[in-house]
């Protein structure tokens, strides 16, 4: 669809602001509606728009599949890692209070890290799902 100048130029202009809005929702999860899940979907939607317009090959060049799979697993590791670190420091699983100098700052850091892990996993799962569905008919042809 990149032969159509209207679609191509709007994608080029919209791409960066969409990712920025996704990251804004990610890091303002504790002030308003938002958080990891929504942010992950928004960030992934920017990449999906790119793949839709420029073709899936260009999309895979922008965001390689092996990096995608590594980040997908890393999100889960961050989530579990925060829980295990709080266990090592002598509290229960995912009890944030112990992470900072005071309970409040500890909770802030804990929520931020956990949400980051969730966002990373959700966005990468979305991109992987899209790649799996969009590449389906090409596999069948071969």
């Amino acid at each position, binding site marked *: *669809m*990149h*032969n159509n100048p209207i*679609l191509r130029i709007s994608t080029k202009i919209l791409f960066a602001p*969409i990712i920025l*809005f996704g990251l804004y*929702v990610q890091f303002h999860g504790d002030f*308003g*509606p*938002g958080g990891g899940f*929504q942010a992950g*979907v*928004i960030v992934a*939607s920017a990449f*999906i*728009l790119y*793949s*839709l*317009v*420029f*073709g*899936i*090959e*260009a999309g895979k060049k922008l965001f390689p599949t092996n990096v995608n799979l590594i980040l997908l697993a890393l999100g889960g590791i961050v989530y579990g890692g925060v829980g295990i670190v709080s266990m090592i420091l002598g509290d229960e699983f995912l009890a944030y209070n112990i992470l900072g100098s005071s309970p409040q700052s500890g909770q802030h850091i804990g929520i931020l890290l956990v949400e980051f892990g969730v966002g990373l996993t959700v966005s990468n799962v979305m991109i992987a799902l*899209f790649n799996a*569905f*969009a*590449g389906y*008919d*090409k596999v069948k042809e071969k």
Partner: protein
Amino acid sequence: MFLAGLIACAITGILILVRIILGKTTFDRILAVNSLGTVIVIGISLHGFYSSRPEFLDIAIVYALINFIGTVAVLKLFSTGSLGGDK
């Protein structure tokens, strides 16, 4: 006042649903669904003001975004038969 706007949005939504059901061609339906999305964006922002929680505007932006990308994806799937092609 916000309630009146919400009622107008609801009436519009019902009228657009009639077009989605009547349809005829797929392009009619896609066009109507896109318009319904715009009306829902207005409705979400109005509802945020009505219940005096203007943070709902974030959700309205997200809805507008997903509406746009979804329409492009459905149009591409319907016209070329695949999501991944670069035509």
